[in-house]
């Protein structure tokens, strides 16, 4: 009798756990069903590779936004990855225990600050800074990349630190025993051994940057044209959706959902590669 009861509760908990599967399936299907008509009418190639987005004249090419997202993300990684990985190395291997007690909450707070606050900071501080030092209007690819570079730091630091900590202590001790100093032991044994986890950290940061919306909207200028340069405005896939969803109708509306679909597929691809590299980490099989 007890066994039957146990089975009942096991199944109830299973049903609860199934909710998140249902959620993912529904998000997928609503995006597919909503985005397909636009892809059919416009044509997949025309939609993905079209260089002009002009809803008023029925031109729906999202290549400018795809490139916008890619450029902004790549530039953000140039700022964010070295600083993030080095900070993770600092936290895992260099930080004195007392300092760590302050440092960890600082990184957690950086992760907790809302993107609209980052965006606001970018708007009132970074935009004028870029405008005064580099010229242009200040709302530019460079500004968005700088801001995103800061925003992805906590993501990269947290995952990379966990990866570094998962490397067996014997690696470090072995290097010391061979005569390497602390810095060398860390950089030439621990860091290479944690490679897989570090790549996972970068991919997660990349996903965060590709998906960021509100902060980018406030500093990137948002012109819907092919990216022109570091100091010119760009529009990303995410911002395209938020800016035009308010007044879009018919094909324009469907085209925006299709934009979200492309973004979603991007993110799923990134997630799969993240899972792949995370699997290669120590302590993860």
């Amino acid at each position, binding site marked *: 009798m007890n066994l039957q009861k*146990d089975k009942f509760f096991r199944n109830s908990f299973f049903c609860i756990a199934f909710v*998140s599967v249902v959620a993912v399936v529904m998000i997928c299907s609503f995006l597919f069903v909503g985005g397909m008509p636009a892809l059919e009418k416009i044509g997949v190639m025309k939609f993905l590779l079209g260089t002009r987005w002009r809803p008023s004249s029925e031109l729906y090419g999202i290549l400018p936004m795809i490139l916008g997202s890619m450029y902004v993300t790549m530039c953000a990684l140039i700022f964010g990855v070295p600083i993030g990985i080095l900070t993770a190395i600092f936290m895992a291997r260099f930080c004195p225990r007392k300092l760590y007690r302050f440092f960890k909450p600082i990184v957690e707070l950086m992760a*907790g600050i*809302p993107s609209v606050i980052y*965006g*606001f900071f970018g708007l009132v501080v970074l935009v004028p800074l870029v405008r005064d030092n580099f010229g242009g209007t200040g709302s530019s690819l460079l500004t968005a990349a700088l801001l995103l570079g800061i925003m992805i730091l906590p993501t990269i630091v947290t995952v990379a630190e966990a990866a570094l900590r998962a490397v067996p202590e014997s690696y470090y001790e072995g290097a010391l025993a061979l005569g390497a100093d*602390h810095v060398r032991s860390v950089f030439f044994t621990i860091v290479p051994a944690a490679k897989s986890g570090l790549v996972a950290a970068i991919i997660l940061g990349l996903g965060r940057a590709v998906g960021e*919306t509100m902060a980018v909207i406030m500093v990137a200028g948002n012109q819907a044209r092919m990216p022109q340069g570091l100091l010119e405005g760009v529009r990303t896939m*995410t911002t395209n959706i*938020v800016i035009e969803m308010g007044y879009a109708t018919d094909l324009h509306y469907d085209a925006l959902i299709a934009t979200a679909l492309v973004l979603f597929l991007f993110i799923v691809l990134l997630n799969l590669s993240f899972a792949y590299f995370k699997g290669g980490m120590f302590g993860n099989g």
Partner: protein
Amino acid sequence: MVNCFKMQAATTASKVLGITVWLAAGVNVLSLISLIGYILAQGIPYLSWELFALEYTTQNVSLFPALVDTLLMVAVALSLAAPIGIGTAIYFVEYAKKGNKFVSIMDMTTDTLAGIPSVVYGLFGLLFFVIYLQMGYSLLAGACTVAIMILPMIIRTTEEALQAVPISYREESYALGANKLRTVLVVVLPAAVPGILAGIILSIGRIMGETAALVYTAGTVAQLPEDLFSSGRSLAVHLYVLASEGLFMEQAFATAVVLVIITVIINGASTWMAGKLMRGN
């Protein structure tokens, strides 16, 4: 940490690398301090009681209605997501068999949910809750949308908290004759409460700061809501609207101060709670 061999003579290259590591860490601290410092320094002078007036008018862009909307959405979203999230984590940790194909698929979907950008959640909320279920732009639609969004966060933190409870607790409970459910609910869950709360507090912070998922689900109406079916802007949406209109920058700064203070308090509370779990075990 393990610095006992520091005495060895360091080569120049090692020294440079060592300094770079400290510099990189400094950049983190510096960017956070400048962000919070700047917003507080610029915004605190503009904080006034009028900003907390009951009504929003074009002369006085009160943030009070937005604050009420935000709290309402937090309450509704949590009452939806917390039971589901905690239940899911209990299934993963206590019931699921390791290596089961289906369980690893469920694990993957949780990761997928965590990776979906908030703007995609917003669009899904618009298509499903607002249009398909005909909720319209409403606090309810917004709350449902963010409830799905915070689900992975609650699942992951609860999982960690449950895993931190020593196996011996469970074994002793079985030895005393308790069945599985009793063991989970009466022995394991209470021991994990601080960790679960830490995760829930973090998700409150996530909802408080959410913008992209709410603009097209809860809408941007700036008045006090009548019920859950009225549209209303959250605090973060309020800040976004003020900042992008550019007419009320002083009030925008003050709103940013309120949001920053809430974030700091929430993070502090979460860290404190998580610390309690560590000490408890």
